């Protein structure tokens, strides 16, 4: 049994019996202005050569809610993640953060605005130590150039403290990440995202099959971030888990938004059918096209 057996119409609250992961309260301001998105994609198109990987995709992330991004392999989910986290620039359309159009040139700019990502491959480098992995791309430094150097004490302590918060209090941060168990590696990616994510959390669920425990960690992360008032983009291929935490479900097919549904529109079975059955999806897509 890998999926939840019965899922009611209510989305899950804070997971019982477990401390929520301590995401910092969102800097977007709580309580959020109802419906005002912290991040929005408007007609975003991304091309690889002349082939569009994303075709006029629109999507809004509202503080304190979870938007699930679903779709088959190659649908363009990770491309959305790349655009939102500043790894790839969009060719057309607009990317808005707090209502203002931005164009990230590098991931640091996205991170500086409080957008953090848990990548599909976790972005953990096996041969580097845990603390170096934690700060990758944004190491704390001291001194002035050319003598600027990594502040080792701050970096090691900061990483250890952040890891303690996700349930790894005694982890030796000086060992290579290769020495971590898969679950610990996952926790490292989560801790890093929690540290840098003040407004938006993007989770691209690993492609490799996850254990129940890893799924639990992913869901716990998503729920904790939501409850801290972050806007969450949850990319997953498992509709059961998506429906467990999602407020909104955006279905991608061939780089286009095939459906944009709320909890009221669809139950878990419907969602499963939509994703697994290409037929149902095609029908729905056609219907949506006709009505718009």
């Amino acid at each position: 049994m890998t999926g939840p057996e019965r899922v009611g119409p209510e989305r899950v609250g804070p997971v019982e019996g477990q401390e929520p992961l301590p995401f910092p309260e969102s800097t977007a301001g709580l309580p959020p202005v109802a419906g005002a998105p912290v991040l929005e994609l408007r007609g975003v198109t991304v091309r690889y050569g002349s082939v569009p990987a994303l075709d006029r995709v629109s999507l809004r992330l509202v503080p304190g809610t979870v938007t699930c991004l679903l779709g088959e392999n190659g649908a363009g989910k990770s491309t959305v993640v790349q655009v939102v986290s500043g790894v790839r620039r969009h060719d057309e359309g607009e990317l808005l953060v707090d209502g203002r159009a931005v164009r990230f040139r590098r991931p640091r700019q996205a991170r500086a605005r409080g957008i953090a990502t848990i990548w599909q491959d976790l972005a953990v480098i096996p041969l580097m130590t845990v603390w170096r992995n934690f700060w990758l791309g944004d190491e704390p430094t001291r001194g002035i150039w050319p003598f600027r150097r990594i502040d080792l004490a701050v970096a090691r302590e900061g990483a250890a403290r952040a890891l303690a918060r996700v349930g790894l209090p005694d982890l030796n941060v000086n060992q290579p990440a290769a020495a971590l168990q898969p679950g610990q590696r996952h926790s490292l990616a989560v801790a890093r995202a929690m540290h840098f994510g003040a407004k938006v959390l993007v989770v691209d669920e690993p492609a490799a099959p996850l254990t129940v425990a890893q799924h639990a960690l992913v869901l716990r992360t998503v729920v904790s971030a939501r409850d801290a008032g972050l806007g969450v983009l949850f990319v997953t291929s498992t509709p059961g888990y998506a429906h467990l935490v999602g407020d909104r479900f955006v279905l991608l097919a061939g780089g286009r938004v095939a459906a944009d549904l709320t909890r009221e529109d669809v139950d878990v079975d419907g969602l499963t059918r939509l994703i697994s059955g290409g037929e149902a999806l095609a029908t729905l897509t056609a219907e949506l096209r006709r009505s718009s």
Partner: protein
Amino acid sequence: MSTAQRPVFGVPVRRAPSRGRRLLTRPSTPAFVGVLVALVVFGAQAPQLVGTGGLASLLDAAALIGIGAVAVTLLLVAGQFDVSIGVLSVASSVTAGLLVSEAGWGVWPALAASLVGALAVGVVNGLLVVLTGLPSFLVTLATFLVLQGGTLVVAQSVAGTSLVDRVEGAAGWPSAEALFGSGVALGGGRFRISILWWLAAVVLAGWLLRRTRFGNAIYALGGSRRAAREMGVPTASTTVALYLLTATAAWLLGTLALVRQGGVPVAPEFGDEIEYLVVAVIGGCLLGGGYGSAVGAAAGALLYGTVRTGIDIAGWESYSFQVVLGVLLVVALLANGVARRRLTAVPRS
């Protein structure tokens, strides 16, 4: 839910490896062991090797190869290679030499000009690697050919010789000689200033690798390019900066040779860069990138110097050095493979 399904993030953490064990897994350890073995083996055959005279020539050989090896180590850790270092060092010394002997420049302006030229080659290498996305081996092979041919053509047409000399005695020569060609006599040996340059290069590279964001970027680039990009590590500027550093090392090697001999033969040949690569690998670098250290490169160079001088003093056939170096390379490759497997093995418990 059975206990087996409890979240893994709660599991007790394994004991941290002891200090001794960590020392054993350092990239530089096998090379240091090799140095000891070589000192014992050759010391028994040729006791002069461990006297001041032997030590001076040992360190001299180690210094020249070590400067190149430490630059190659930085590249290898980032998953890159540069075939053009050796030729670039000849080209920059020929450039400086010709500017002094043919154009009548002072030594310092000539050295500055050749440094600018070397840096320009470094920028071209770096940009080509970044922009084409091709393997750096191929890209720098092109640079190698251009530099090799270009150096010969220019030297022939400008000076009409295959030896650049008459550098000695030009304006600024005494200070240049003090900085790049001097040495101190100690006992029966003359310890050259190139040893200090080598130490400076090792210390600088070690500091960059372990203590700066640039160093983290180098490890990340070689460890996983995808992860580096996702985390916002500046991959392009790091790569270009690395080729600039390599070019600077090449210029330094060329300058040390030029000033030491008061001239250079115009013989840009293939081979030096392969020795740098071999020494870097002996020093513990993984060819796949992401692993290696400046101290390792220094240990590798020390081993190189010991074996080379030892064979010399012991009176072995000089080609046997290549045999020994080849054997050392194989041993290093095997040892590094074992280290790699142990490092990347995911713990099962």
